[in-house]
């Protein structure tokens, strides 16, 4: 059995920042990543990010992954990243079981663990939603921007949150037609600057609309959409048909953290954070000492906050192992200040409410 000081599960922005922060304090870190490439969601984000300079605002997500990996390299003697390794179990004695390349199975025992596993896409129920051609928006983005595969010719985007509008824009950049973006909510959920980019390319954004059914025999051929009233009930007679070969479902993400539940940390359903989340202290520590959480796994937010939480969790996990840098308190306060800033505006209302409920 492999023994490590600090194990980080997931190499997205949260996991990478946690690794850098802990290594900077002197901890030895192992990062597990289930895919073939480190960087999490960042590696498929070709658009410029929001936020402030300390979170690399105005850089493209994929380049932010590069910046973080360069930082990881600076601590090459203290950080190891194992790719194609999925953590599949998490037990009382802090043993994590790992499946490598879908064939080799082994155990790792760690003194402290940070869960930075990110999120998964929610789906939507409607007749024929299992036809080939109906994808999660994130999956289409991965196909297109990581593997260079064209998902189809004409797309209907379901969901006008940030992911829906950003993936629509990137589809257009790839030369694929976006027939419309629809959302059951009466208002666009995405940042309006992103929505305006699409609008001025002539893509209609249809709020108070939903998918009624998908049509096709072997694969998607068309979608029937309709208007909904203020209680989200379909309005009869408002049906419209869109001939599309791709439908992207982008109706939100849920935190991916079953490993923490398996380990027995205290979990709670918090709607504002989009699902079950671990209860945690302001230092990102769960109800079990030495076990931390950071990024989307602790509640759906953004890469900017995932990075700040990663730095904070890495700093505090290293400290729990006895690696307390001289400027510990100063750094801790700085990360908390960054998080406060990012969550302070009206779009942060929801997050702040969720944080209050999930605080230990």
């Amino acid at each position, binding site marked *: 059995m492999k023994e490590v000081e600090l194990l980080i599960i997931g190499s997205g922005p949260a996991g990478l920042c946690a690794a850098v922060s802990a290594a900077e304090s002197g901890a030895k870190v192992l990062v597990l990543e289930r895919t073939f490439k480190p960087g999490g969601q960042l590696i498929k984000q070709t658009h410029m990010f929001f936020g402030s300079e300390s979170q690399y605002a105005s850089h493209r997500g994929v380049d932010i992954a590069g910046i973080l990996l360069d930082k990881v390299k600076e601590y090459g003697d203290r950080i190891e990243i194992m790719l194609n390794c999925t953590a599949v179990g998490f037990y009382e004695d802090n043993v994590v079981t790992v499946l490598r390349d879908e064939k080799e199975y082994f155990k790792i025992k760690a003194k402290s663990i940070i869960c930075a596993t990110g999120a998964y896409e929610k789906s939507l129920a409607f007749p024929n939603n299992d036809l080939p051609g109906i994808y999660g928006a994130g999956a289409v983005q991965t196909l297109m921007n990581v593997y260079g595969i064209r998902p189809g010719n004409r797309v209907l985007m379901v969901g006008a949150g940030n992911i829906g509008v950003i993936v629509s824009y990137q589809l257009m950049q790839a030369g694929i037609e976006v027939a419309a973006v629809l959302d059951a909510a009466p208002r666009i959920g995405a940042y309006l*600057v992103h929505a305006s980019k699409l609008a001025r390319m002539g*893509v209609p954004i249809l709020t108070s609309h939903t998918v009624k059914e998908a049509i096709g025999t072997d694969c998607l051929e068309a979608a029937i959409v309709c208007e909904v009233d203020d209680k989200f009930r379909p309005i009869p007679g408002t049906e419209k048909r869109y001939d599309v070969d791709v439908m992207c479902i982008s109706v939100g993400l849920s935190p991916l953290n079953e490993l923490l539940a398996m380990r027995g940390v205290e979990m709670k359903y918090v709607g504002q954070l989009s699902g079950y989340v671990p209860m945690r202290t302001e230092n990102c520590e769960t109800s079990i000492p030495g076990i931390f959480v950071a990024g989307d796994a602790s509640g759906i937010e953004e890469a900017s906050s995932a990075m700040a939480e990663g730095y904070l969790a890495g700093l505090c996990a290293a400290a729990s192992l006895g690696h307390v840098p001289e400027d510990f308190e100063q750094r801790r306060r700085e990360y908390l200040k960054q998080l406060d800033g990012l969550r302070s505006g009206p779009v942060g209302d929801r997050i702040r409410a969720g944080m209050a409920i999930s605080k230990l």
Partner: protein
Amino acid sequence: MFEKTGVATREMVMTKFPPIERINRGPVAVVECYQKIPCNPCQTACPVGAIAIGDDINNIPVRDEEKCGGCGVCVAKCPGLSIMIVDGSKSDETVEFRIPYEFLPLPEAGEMVTGLDRAGKPICRAKVIRVMNPAAFDRTPVITLEVAREYLYDFRNFKREV
């Protein structure tokens, strides 16, 4: 309306344009950012401190039209692609726009393109004056276009005709 369609109303747009006298004096930034979001690269990018957001990163940016020299540095830096430069000093009949454009293939100088409004509706034809795509713009090319003056408050995008 704006929150349902992503298309800003004329009244909203007008609040972001400086007075016509200022536009006629030379290039100036129009910052079409209407919503409080945690973002501030426009403020950080401006070399003369003409865009102010302040301590709360969620504040809406305010551009000082007297400080702004229309250099265009902020255009490619804004992740919302919400900034453009307008310049009414070149002629009485036309205005020059500098807008971000992230699509390939890029247009060429001299090319005629179709001008679009904020809803993507074709409204006019426009002439491409310059295509700027230096490394510093980090893959957000900025296109200068000449547009008839009557479309000053409507023109916002273009599409190629080839």
